C-alpha cells in the first residue's frame, strides 16, 4: 500500500468519524470541534495530494495554497461559531441547541 493511499484513507476515516461526532454530540463545543477536525481531514487529503503530485522533489504548491487558505477560512468560521456559542450560553445557560421545534 502506497503512502498516498494510507494518508488518503486516513483522511477519509477522519472525515467519517467527524461526521459521526457532529451527529451524535449535542454539546455545541463538540460539534464545533468536530467540524473543525473535519476541515483537518480535508487538509490532510490535500497535503497528501500535494505530496503525490511532486516533481523533482517539489510538492504541488496549489494544494498547499488551498490548505493555507482553507485553514484561515476554517479558523474564521470556527472562531465566529465559538463566539456565537459563548453568547448563546451566556444568554440561556444551554450548551445544546434548543429552539421551539426541539430539533437539533
Amino acid at each position, binding site marked *: 500500500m502506497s503512502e498516498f493511499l494510507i494518508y488518503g484513507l486516513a483522511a477519509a476515516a477522519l472525515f467519517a468519524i467527524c461526521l459521526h461526532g457532529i451527529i451524535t454530540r449535542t454539546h455545541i463545543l463538540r*460539534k464545533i470541534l468536530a467540524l473543525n477536525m*473535519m476541515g483537518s481531514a480535508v487538509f490532510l487529503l490535500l497535503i497528501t*495530494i500535494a505530496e503525490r503530485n511532486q516533481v523533482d522533489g517539489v510538492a504541488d504548491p496549489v494544494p498547499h495554497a488551498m490548505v493555507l*487558505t482553507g485553514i484561515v*477560512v476554517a479558523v474564521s*468560521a470556527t472562531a465566529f461559531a465559538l463566539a*456565537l456559542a459563548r453568547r448563546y450560553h451566556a*444568554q440561556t445557560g444551554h450548551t445544546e*441547541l434548543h429552539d421551539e421545534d426541539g430539533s437539533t
Partner: protein
Amino acid sequence: MSLVGIWVILIPLICGLAAFAVGGRSSRVIGLIGAGLTFLLSGLLVLHVWQSGVWIYQLGGWDVPLGISLRADGLSAFLIGMTGAVGLGISLYAVRYFEALTPGPSQDPSAALRTGSGRGEESGAGDSPEAERGGTEVWLPGASYWPLWMLLWASLNVLFLSNDIFNLYVGLELLTLASVALIILQREQAAIVAGLRYLLAAFLGSMAYLLGVALIYADAGVLDLGLLADAELTGTATQVAGGLMAVGLLLKAALFPLHFWLPAAHSSAPAPVSAALSALVVKGAFYLLIRLWFEVFESAGTVSVEQMIGGLGAVAIVVGSFQAIRQERLKLMIAYSTVAQVGYLFIMIPLAGSFGDPEASWRFEAWTGGLYHALSHGFAKASMFLAAGVLLSALGHDRVWHLAGSASRFPVIYLSFGIAGMSLMGLPPSAGFVGKWLMLRSAVESGQWWWVVILLVGGLLTAGYVAIVLSQALQHDVDEHTEPHPVPKLMTVMVFALAAMSLLLGLRAAEPLELLEIGAPFQTLMSVVED
C-alpha cells in the same frame, strides 16, 4: 465596458469597507451609493453579456489552470441582474427601516422596529459597559448593517462570476459569514440560536464541498470549471466528489430534509436581511449546484439520483407548504414557504437531467424554467419579507391570526403580498407562471407525469397559505387595540416595487429567457454534437 465584471465585485466591496471605516450614521449614505452603483453595474454587465456574449477574464493575467478566471455567461448575468434589482429594492427599504432603529433625541424608543422574536426580547442597550462603546461613537445596528450587506452583495457577485471550484468555496464561506453576521445584527436570543445553527449547517456543507474539490483536483489536476467541463470526468472519484459537493450545496440551499436550519434563521433576522437571505443567498448555493451539475458532472449523473433529488424537492413542496399553512407567525410562514419554493427549484434536476432522450429540447426548457422560477421567487419573496417587516414594525407583531382587518390600513402592502403570492403560485400573469409553464411543458413533453402532478398541486398549496393571510387581512372586523405606528412611505413603495417586478417579468419573458441561452450548458452540448 468589458471590465464591468470586475467593478461589479469591487464597488460593493469598496463601499462596504468605506461604510465600515466611516461607521456611525454616515455609513448608510455610503451604503446607498454602493447599492445604486452596484445596481447600475449589474445592469451594465447584463447589457454587456447580452451584446457581446460570454465574458471571460483571467485574473492577474495568469492563464488557467495556473490562475483563476472569471466568467459571465447568460446565467451569471441573469442572476447578477436579479441580485442587482432585488438588492437595490432591499437597500432603499433598509434606509428607512434602520433609521427607525437608530436611537435619536426626537425618537420615541418604543417606536424602534422589532424583529419579532415574539418572546423574551432582550434589551439591546445597557448591558455592556459604556466605555466599550467607544466614547462618542454609539453602537448602531444600521452602521453594521450597511457594510455587512455590501459584503454579502459582493460575495454573491463573486459567486456568480467565479469560474474556479476552490475560489467558489471561499466565496461560499464569505457569503455564509456575512449572512450569519447579519442574522444576529440585533442579537435577540432567537436570532443567535438560529444564526449558530445556520453557521454550523453551512460549515458542514462547506466541508463536504471542499472534500469534493480536493477529490476533483486529485483526479483531474485542475480547478477551472471550463477545463473540468471539457475533461468530461466519469470516474468513481468524480462521482463521489460530485455527490459530496451536491450534498454540501443542498445543505446550504436548504433542500428537504436539510432545511432544518432555514425557517428560524430566515424568520428571526431583521426584515431586510430576511429578504436578502431568502431571495438571494439561497440562490447562491442553488446556482453553484446547477452549474456543477449540468457542466462538470453532466456525464456522471444518473437517472435514479436525479429522480431522487426531484423527489426530495417534491417532499419539500408538500411539507414546506403544509408547515407554512400551520404557522402562526407571518415571518415563519414566509420562511417555510421558501422551503417549499426551494423544492420547486430542484424539480428542475430530473426534468433537465438524463431522463429519456439526451438531445431533447425539454431539458433546456426545464433548465430555463427552473431558473426563471428562481428569478420570480427572488422578487416575490423579497417583497413578502419586506411586507412582513412593515406589518411587524407598524403593528408590533406578526401573528397571522391577529392581522384581521389590517388590509384597509395597509392596502398597498397586502396588494403586494397578493401579487407576490400569485407569482409563487405560478398564476399568470407573473414571472412564476413563466417558470412553471416551462417546467410543466418539459414534464409533459418528457412524459414525467409525476412531476406534473407535484407542480400543479404545489401551486394550490401555495394558494392555501397566501389565502390565509389575505382573508385574515380582508376581514371586516378590525383586530387592533392600538393605533399602528406610522411606517415610512419608502418602505411600502419598495415592497410594491419588488412585487410589481415579479409581475412585469411575467409579461415580457422573451428577453430574459434569451439572455439565459447565452453560453448555456445545453447549447455547448448541442454545438459539440453538430461539429
